[in-house]
């Protein structure tokens, strides 16, 4: 896959191994969620990012602690990569009291403000203005932070992207627009949905655009590191990661609109397999990779057990969080 900038400084293997583990965590977690969903242990609907793990691992791995990001309905990977507590994550998606959002949001609204996660979002493109505002806050507060807006190629048709590219360019906000381009706008190929291309859009607003093979972990990690630091010092950047969506728009979507050959060929471009091969080539032992898989599986088993044992959420507690308690109402 082409990359718009040459990789002249390969990512060191020890960092790649850590990012590989992140990918493994995302893959195994989402595979588990898929089974739980099929077994009716998860209410509502979930959107999985299987096949896109390299983007989450590579971009989130490039962020500093003070950085913030807004993600999408397909956002499990970003939140897991940022290090959300796995048990709280499972509890949330399974609708339990101890969920990271108390069981109020579920899969589409996983957030951890302590990690700078401004939330997954149920509205396509809605995270873009949130990240723009967050970048505005970083700039105004001189926090040194960068805000990342994850969005899919489907959101390229949303006006919010165009408004936010303009605003970020005007104010030279410390912000990275990360497009996870998997070629699909929900149930339709993006080629039939969007007349422009993201690089041309970026050029129109004077925002540097970089495209990368989104299934090449090292390429994503390298590009993200460069782009994030550029945004921190020099204003907005666009990083377009070309990637693959293995599952349907949501779990249970039979994807009849997709060519069977296309789906069958997806594992050829599996970011995890490619990363494992690269690590083995760089001298990592097969047994180390096997141990990593076992360790991830063990973590997930523990988290899942905790989630299953957790209580159901309390209605009154939910009701109390509609507004923030304040003396302005009491003493009024």
């Amino acid at each position, binding site marked *: 896959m082409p990359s718009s900038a040459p990789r002249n400084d390969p990512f060191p293997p020890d960092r790649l191994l850590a990012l590989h583990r992140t990918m493994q965590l995302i893959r195994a977690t989402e595979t588990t969620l898929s089974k739980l969903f099929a077994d009716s242990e998860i209410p509502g609907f979930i959107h999985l990012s299987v096949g896109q793990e390299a983007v989450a691992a590579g971009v989130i791995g490039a962020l500093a602690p003070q950085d913030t990001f807004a993600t999408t309905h397909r956002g499990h990977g970003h939140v897991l990569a940022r290090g959300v507590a796995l048990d709280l994550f499972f509890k949330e998606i399974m609708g339990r009291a101890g969920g990271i959002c108390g069981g109020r949001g579920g899969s589409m609204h996983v957030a951890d403000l302590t990690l700078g996660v401004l939330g997954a979002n149920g509205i396509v493109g809605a995270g873009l*203005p949130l990240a723009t505002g967050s970048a505005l806050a970083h700039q105004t507060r001189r926090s040194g932070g960068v805000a990342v807006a994850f969005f899919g190629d489907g959101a390229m048709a949303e006006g919010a992207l165009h408004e*936010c590219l303009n605003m970020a360019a005007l104010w030279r906000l410390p912000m990275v627009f990360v497009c996870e381009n998997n070629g699909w706008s929900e149930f339709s190929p993006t080629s039939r949905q969007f007349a422009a291309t993201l690089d041309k859009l970026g050029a129109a607003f004077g925002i540097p655009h970089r495209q990368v093979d989104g299934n090449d972990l090292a390429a994503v990690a390298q590009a993200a590191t460069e782009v994030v630091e550029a945004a921190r010092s020099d204003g907005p950047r666009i990083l377009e990661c070309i990637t693959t969506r293995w599952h349907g728009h949501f779990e249970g979507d039979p994807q009849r609109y997709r060519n069977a050959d296309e789906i069958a060929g997806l594992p050829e471009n599996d970011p995890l397999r490619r990363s494992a091969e690269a690590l083995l080539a760089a001298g990592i032992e097969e047994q180390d990779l096997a141990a990593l898989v076992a360790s991830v599986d063990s973590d997930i088993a523990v988290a899942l057990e905790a989630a299953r044992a957790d209580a159901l959420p309390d209605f009154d507690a939910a009701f109390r969080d509609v*507004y923030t308690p304040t003396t302005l*109402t009491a003493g009024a």
Partner: protein
Amino acid sequence: MSKPLRYVNAIAQALSDAMAADPSVMLFGEDVAAAGGPFKATRGLLDTHGPERVRDTPISEASIVGAAVGAALTGMRPVVEIMFMDFVALAMDAVVNQAAKARFMFGGQCSVPMVLRTPHGGGLNAGPQHSQCLEAWFAHIPGLRVVCPATVADAYSLLRASIEAPDPVVFVENKALYALQGDLDVDAPRGIGKARIDRPGRHATIVTYGATLYAARAAADRLAQDGVEAEIVDLRWIQPWDEEAVFASVAKTHRVVIAHEAVQAFGVGAEIAARIASDLFDELDAPVLRVGAPFMPIPFAKSLEAAYLPDADRIVAAVKDTLA
């Protein structure tokens, strides 16, 4: 400390004082900085507080409000302006799905301390897309606060309260009131959800807010000539509205008219009327009546707009109907 001021200057002063008091307060919106705001409610603030905290935005309502949510989640207390309340339709996702819900759907992890200032109301012959009173839309959304000050003193103190409030506030100013003069009390208590008895009376209650307060006062003056003492409750806050004050007044007078400039159907008055009917049924000695705009877009022509807007005549007639 007290000095006479225009309503629009009270807004500007509240913004300026809030920015001086709290470095996390910032303003952005269309033409709020260099131009000082379309109605001059932010005049001078760019000079006093600098271009980082007072920013002109492009004409991008959806992203202005969405950015306010993101900034609020990242430690700021943004105050954004939507030039006319009609334009807020462009920003509804940010208000309704993002600002209102972030605290709740993230399990109480965060608050969204932001204020959306926007002017509503007719009287300027601005036509169907520059005159609407849409506050009921927001009062319907759990997570939002909605306030509509009618006096100069309230314009200041309620805006300060809105900026200090931890949750998103839709702060509605009536364009017709910008030139109103009154006294300012910068030390007045700032609370959320407290109504004000504008005028005591014992025969009927007029519940109102915003510019309609002045129609209610004129109506009360005329009713007084007929020996009818109308009590006026200025709600100030629409969400949450002051049930205690309204119920106490209705329990005293046993008759109530709810008057507002917004379209009557499915409006703020409908909710208040329903609550009175359910909670105060046995206090009622007459049907609960509403005075609001007819169910049509607000028209442009001076004659049409004058016929459209609720006025003192209609309030007087409604109060007399409750006394029939």
